[in-house]
């Protein structure tokens, strides 16, 4: 004892690294947006964007997309959340598991699967429709290559955010509040309407905002469905600006509105949730009481499963079908059953090995570095170790305001120039993935820290352990459950990340999500199906692992 205490320098080092991580790309983004090719300061980029209809149309489309998606998500997820959290509908745990499945499915994979299902002429559902109703070959029930089609697919994979927020809020609401209402004579319906719903409102609003932001910043699904449908969204437009010759300044300028809109909405969410006293005030609280649905429970269950058909059952079925079928748009039968697609992916496709290896390295690396960083930063902010810990906490959650593709652009601008030329290496992807994963990881661990009594750490320090020594011997073991859960969470998130990866990869640093995206360009749906199924299997294996950890119930879902 008595050796030089490296605790403070190390903690300061982490803080500095965090600042660089977040502020560098954003600074370059702003720099590029206000400079022209010759390096002079200008607002011409913004003027160009504001006056060119090929930029304004995508902006309008994006807003419509996000709004519709948010509304649909709320309309679907809120009742489902109520059914799962507050009623005696059977199979509630299964429903929760299926919603988790929706969440971990990458939206771009869902988009491809829905192409297989609902392309107007070749889609499996449309074929069924024609077979059953004898309709003309031209007629179709669904056309996925439309704006409503895109909204539908996006909603399928965004509604879990709303569901989780609403269900958790209702889970935590004690039954006393509703009992108090019934004692005074209110019917179950009235109680639901005048007590439960208003108390769940903040969660619903928060969910709606998250859904809006997610829908607004998605890249994969629009890139797959919007082009055939004949329109751009902001994200696909930004991507198209990188076509040769790249218009980096316009890309940077186009990214800023997305960024500002996100920040504004997050502020609005904080204000809405902050002002009113929606927390539960009072003494000891009772368990939530479940509403008895009677014979309606079967109707409710059927409706719920009908909803879950869309993100889970139908798409997964379509992918399985395409993986084993000679022609992806035909139902598997003895005649056209084939293992050719699997053979192609594993033995012929030369990028498969590289993509898998890179994905594994990046997932593991990002999960580990992200978790360690989040632990240290959460420690600093919850124990108030450094004077400016509040700013640090803000920085750690800041990336949530940066859409994936915007971050990709920022990182591209930052790391394709001296002094740090990281483009072409796995490092730039690692930086992107850690940055994207950090906010959710940080918040999870911060909540976990609050549960650990600071006395436990002080008892260690007074006996002679340094801060970092205490963190390692006492705090980290106590947080083990949360640490492992956070690690798995980041792992899953990185597997399916596309919007930043698509900007930053090169042939050597390709990952599975990008490989799937490239395969979609040339229409190799069978190979996509095989790769997609492997991705899902991997992801589910990790999810099962998390749920095996004792004491970790419903996953806290955030960020893409």
């Amino acid at each position, binding site marked *: 004892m008595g050796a030089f205490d490296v605790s403070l320098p190390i903690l300061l080092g982490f803080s500095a690294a965090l600042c660089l991580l977040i502020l560098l790309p954003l600074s370059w983004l702003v720099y590029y947006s206000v400079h022209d090719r010759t390096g002079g300061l200008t607002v011409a980029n913004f003027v160009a964007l504001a006056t060119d209809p090929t930029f304004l149309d995508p902006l309008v489309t994006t807003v419509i997309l996000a709004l519709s998606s948010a509304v649909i998500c709320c309309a679907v997820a809120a009742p489902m959340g109520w059914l799962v959290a507050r009623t005696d509908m059977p199979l509630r745990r299964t429903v929760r598991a299926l919603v988790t499945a929706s969440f971990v499915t990458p939206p771009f994979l869902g988009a491809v699967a829905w192409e297989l299902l609902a392309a107007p002429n070749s889609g499996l559902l449309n074929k069924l429709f024609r077979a059953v109703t004898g309709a003309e070959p031209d007629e179709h029930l669904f056309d996925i290559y439309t704006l409503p089609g895109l909204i539908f697919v996006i909603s399928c994979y965004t509604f879990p955010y709303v569901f989780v927020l609403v269900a958790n809020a209702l889970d935590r609401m004690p039954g006393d509040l509703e009992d108090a209402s019934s004692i005074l004579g209110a019917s179950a319906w009235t109680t639901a309407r005048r007590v439960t719903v208003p108390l769940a409102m903040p969660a619903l609003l928060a969910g709606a905002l998250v859904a809006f932001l997610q829908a607004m910043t998605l890249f994969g699904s629009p890139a797959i469905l919007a082009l055939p449908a004949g329109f751009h969204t902001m994200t696909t437009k930004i991507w198209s600006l990188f076509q040769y010759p790249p218009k980096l300044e316009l890309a940077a300028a186009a990214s800023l509105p997305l960024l500002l809109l996100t920040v504004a909405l997050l502020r609005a969410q904080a204000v809405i949730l902050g002002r009113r006293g929606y927390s539960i005030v009072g003494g000891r609280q009772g368990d939530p009481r479940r509403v008895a649905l009677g014979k309606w429970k079967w109707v409710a269950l059927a409706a719920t499963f009908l909803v879950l058909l869309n993100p889970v059952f139908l798409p997964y079925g379509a992918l399985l079908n395409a993986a084993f079928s000679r022609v992806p748009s035909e139902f598997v039968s003895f005649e056209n059953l084939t293992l050719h697609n699997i053979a192609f992916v594993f033995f012929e*496709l030369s990028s498969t090995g590289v993509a898998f290896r890179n994905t594994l390295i990046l997932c593991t690396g990002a999960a580990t570095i992200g978790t360690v960083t989040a632990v240290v930063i959460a420690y600093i902010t919850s124990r108030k170790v450094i004077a400016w810990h509040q700013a640090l906490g803000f920085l750690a959650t800041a990336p949530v305001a940066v859409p994936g593709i915007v971050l990709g652009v920022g990182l591209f601008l930052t790391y394709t120039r001296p002094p740090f030329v990281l*483009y*072409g290496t796995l490092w730039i992807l690692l930086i992107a993935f850690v940055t994207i994963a950090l906010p959710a990881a940080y918040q999870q661990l911060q909540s976990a820290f609050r549960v650990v009594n600071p006395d436990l750490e002080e008892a260690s320090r007074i006996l002679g352990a340094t801060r970092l020594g205490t963190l390692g011997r006492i705090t980290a073991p106590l947080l083990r459950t949360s640490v492992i859960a956070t690690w798995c969470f980041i792992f899953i998130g990185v597997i399916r990340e596309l919007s930043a990866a698509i900007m930053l990869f*090169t042939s050597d640093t390709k990952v599975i999500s990008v490989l799937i995206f490239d395969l979609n360009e*040339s229409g*190799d749906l069978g190979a996509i199906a095989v790769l997609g199924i492997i991705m899902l299997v991997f992801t589910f294996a990790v999810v099962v692992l998390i749920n095996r950890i004792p004491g970790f119930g419903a996953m806290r879902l955030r960020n893409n």
Partner: protein
Amino acid sequence: MPDQNISRRTLLRASGIAAMSAFASPIRAAAPEPTAVTPALIEAARKEGKVVYYTPIDLPVAELIAKAFEAKYPGVSVRVERTGAERVFQRISQEYASNIHAVDVVNSSDAAHFIIWKRDGLLAPFVPEDVARHYAAEQKDPDGMFAAFRANLSVIGYNTRLVKAEDAPKSFADLLDPKWTGKIVKGHPGYSGTIMTATYEISRDIGWDFFEKLAKQRVMQVQSAADPPKKLGLGERAVMADGNEYVLFQVKESGGPVEAVYPGEGTPLSLSPNGLFKAAPNPNAARLFQCFCFSPECQELMVNRGAMRSLHAQIKEKPGRRPLGEIKLMKEDAAAVERLSEEIKARYTKIFRV
């Protein structure tokens, strides 16, 4: 010109007419000496162990070529990076701008790219023996930087289950018929080199208002020229306005209900060159691969199993396909494409809104 004598000279001339400006301008007095495959080259390639091939060739065919090479030269693995030619070009630009030299050999269906690369000094002069012996002067670069790997046609096509042969469109003008509204699929010049070249040629020979009218047909827009034939095969659309001929043939020859149509106004053509980069990370493997690509073995593979069109003098066309000499072709002009590509993309985007 419909009726032509199918003589070898005619064949050469037809393809030669098509192969113009990309191969026109020499910068040295003579091309480098042709190189045969020697054990020393094979050994050197094996030491490097791998070769990276950026190509827009449809993935199954590209991997076919790769596997054939690996079978012939064990110890040298091929990594195929496949995206549309315009995206290949973009990627290489991005990588070279950051000093990343990942690509060894490149193929592009937009010959203008080679004009740019050659001008920027990025290509390595190298002439495989086969190129020196069996390729006409109009099909290779006088300075030995690249040679035409294949003749790439963009054809009209239709799904035979959805369209009767007599109703099928026979020309670009036919595509504008209202009966095809909502039934057409086509590729995009922003991603595909084949489509970029075709768009230039059509705009030159028929005019831009063809595209303006085509846009009103509510076409399904896809990225790669390899996609429309597949969409036809799926039955997703009835007609394709453009797309790779060889992919269409492949779908047909594996039982798909598709048929090609060579438009009356002329079929857009691009001679898709193969070249090596000076800064290739695996130079010897690159040379070996380039030699292989132009070998009769590879070219025959491409013709028989890849349904492509070879310009190798010793390779015969596959029976059952209309010979190149019998098809009315639009003239290729890579220099013009190079000059106009940005404008073409911008105008296309404006018309089709994506």
